[in-house]
């Protein structure tokens, strides 16, 4: 049924030279210039959701077991027995829990970056994977929520952090960065979920129109009765515009506030004004790495995705990653420089501990994974257009960024102003819990990939409408019309 299969046979179109700027070549390269009839595209997306191999279910089952044990059973055990079964101690009161929280919030930044910032700036390459990225935002934030609640000593009283009227007249302490955090993360989770949902409505309507059975009910309920009238489109467009603009400052504020959890503390190494932007760029760094990993996997495993996700997209994200890596290096150096130069003796001790202490290998790998490898690989268009290469780079960046948070939290907590209490941190049940959140993230994503059209068909179609080839003399170039 799909007319795209024959194109799959061709070698990935990555390289192109001046002489090959033919029309055919451009169409092959750019999704936006390679339109298919709408009906066919719908069919392809529906197929990608429906066709599930046994391998999928094997992975799904394994992950479910990991989630059940690693996340829910371990967490229940920890709630019942106390945080003693984790590795947290004095002075590392925060351990991998907070590392994971920051990590997942970081991952979640990619979705917003791609679907909001790129939308605002009309970067056309975003179109096929905005949804894939937004799903990461929402699911990543869910894991961040799990991680932060896990770390609480008495999680069953979490509602004391929420502002609700009570007879004691006691409200949350708004002086605390954790309160801001809670409100900011809630804001971000709600708004990114809404922002995921709004552009999804037309696609859900599409899915509703071409499915039967329980899926029909499912899509019918979610599509809310969307028909595509002028009014509905107008409201949707308006809302998406507002969202695209407003969610950007929210996204920046969230990770900045997360950074203030550390930067606002009177601790050597933490009390740094660069932490806000440093964390934001770090979040984008890991987020882009995660997006590219997800795209590589989606392209490789899901049916028809080779049509939607093409080397051009890896190329574009690769460029962004290179840029962000440079930005991260800049902020890292900035932070390091001022701490090294003007820090007090405790800060110096801490820097020394980072580099040469027992976790020195982690510090070094962080720099290699976050700076050296991206720079070495991503400058090359051919390499950065190759999915498996960027997958590995993305993976290493994520490991590197996780290391970065590990160094900022438990490693830095080991050193304080009271040398009598310095102590290393050895993770305990945090490891299954952390793996549990990772598995849960993948599990949610896998489930979503079977239920939610992963490609925003109408957005792709809209883009394809706007693109055309135009001849200037002998050269054929891509021209984009501004439709909105």
């Amino acid at each position, binding site marked *: 049924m799909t007319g795209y299969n024959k194109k799959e046979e061709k070698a990935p179109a990555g390289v192109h030279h001046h002489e090959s700027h033919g029309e055919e070549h451009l169409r092959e390269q750019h999704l936006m210039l390679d339109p298919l009839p709408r009906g066919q595209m719908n069919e392809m997306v529906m197929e990608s959701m429906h066709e599930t191999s046994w391998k999928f279910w094997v992975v799904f089952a394994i992950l479910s077991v990991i989630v059940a044990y690693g996340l829910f059973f371990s967490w229940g055990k920890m709630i019942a027995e106390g945080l003693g079964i984790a590795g947290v101690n004095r002075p590392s009161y925060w351990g991998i829990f907070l590392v994971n929280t920051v990590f997942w919030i970081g991952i979640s930044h990619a979705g917003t970056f791609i679907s909001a910032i790129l939308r605002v700036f009309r970067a056309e390459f975003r179109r096929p994977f905005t949804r894939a990225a937004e799903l990461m935002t929402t699911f990543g934030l869910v894991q961040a929520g799990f991680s932060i609640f896990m770390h609480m000593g008495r999680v069953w009283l979490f509602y004391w952090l929420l502002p609700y009227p009570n*007879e004691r007249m006691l409200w949350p302490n708004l002086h605390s960065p954790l309160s801001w955090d809670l409100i900011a993360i809630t804001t971000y989770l709600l708004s990114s979920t809404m922002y995921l949902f709004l552009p999804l409505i037309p696609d859900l309507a599409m899915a509703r129109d071409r499915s039967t059975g329980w899926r029909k009910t499912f899509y019918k309920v979610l599509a809310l009765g969307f028909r595509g009238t002028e009014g509905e489109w107008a409201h949707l467009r308006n809302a998406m515009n507002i969202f695209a603009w407003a969610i950007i400052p929210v996204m920046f504020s969230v990770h900045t506030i997360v950074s203030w959890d550390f930067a606002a503390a009177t601790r050597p190494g933490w009390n740094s004004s660069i932490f806000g932007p440093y964390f934001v760029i770090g979040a984008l760094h890991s987020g882009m790495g995660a997006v590219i990993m997800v795209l590589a996997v989606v392209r490789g495993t899901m049916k028809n995705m080779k049509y939607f996700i093409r080397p051009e997209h890896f190329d574009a994200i690769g460029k962004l990653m290179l840029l962000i890596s440079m930005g991260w290096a800049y902020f890292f150096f900035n932070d390091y420089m001022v701490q090294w130069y003007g820090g007090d003796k405790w800060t110096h001790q801490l820097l020394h501990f980072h580099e040469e202490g027992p976790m020195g290998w982690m510090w070094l790998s962080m720099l290699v994974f976050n700076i050296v490898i991206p720079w070495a690989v991503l400058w090359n268009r051919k390499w950065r257009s190759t999915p498996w290469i960027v997958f590995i780079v993305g993976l290493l960046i994520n490991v590197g960024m996780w290391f970065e948070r590990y160094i900022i939290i438990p490693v830095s907590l080991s050193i304080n102003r009271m040398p009598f209490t310095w102590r290393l941190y050895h993770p305990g049940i945090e490891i299954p819990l952390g793996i549990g959140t990772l598995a849960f993230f993948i599990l949610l994503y896998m489930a979503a990939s079977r239920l939610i059209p992963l490609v925003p068909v109408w957005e792709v179609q809209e883009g394809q409408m706007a693109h055309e080839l135009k001849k200037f003399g002998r050269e054929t170039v891509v021209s984009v019309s501004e439709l909105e």
Partner: protein
Amino acid sequence: MIKKLFDWLRQPLGLIAVGIAFLALFSLAAYGIHYTQQAPAQPVQFPHKTHVAFGIQCLYCHPGAARGPAAGIPAESKCWGCHNQIAKTQTSALLAPLKDSVLSGTPLQWVPVAQVPDFVQFNHRAHIAAGQNCENCHGDMSKVTVAENPQIFNMGFCLNCHKKVAGDDHVKLVKLTDCGTCHY
């Protein structure tokens, strides 16, 4: 199989069954809540109102309230001080547990009902000294037989009164609303 069950549940009889099951669960839960709010069984059906009617002051039997943190449950020697002179003690079935207890030397097992939540340090003395009457918190005992807890001693209850008592006196307000006054 499941479909059959659903089909059955959709017909009128099934709906009634569901309704009954729901009602049963609801009433069990309601009973549970009701049960938890009941005063527990006491060894003697002690009629507070009778004793109050005789003009016995609260502090006669619970003298700790004026002196220390706990009001205290009186020792049976105190009960016996009066009751061994009351003829009815020997005959009344209601008073038999007291008589048996004193004669056999086995203490009565009372269950205090007026309890503050955990984590709160409460001192009767300060409250009595501040001119609070017992009934402000414990209710009017002249209308009660077996003691029950008329108030839920939660923070709002305490705080309301503390605020009222402090009035415009800033120093007093600070002291009376300080977290460390009750929680340590």
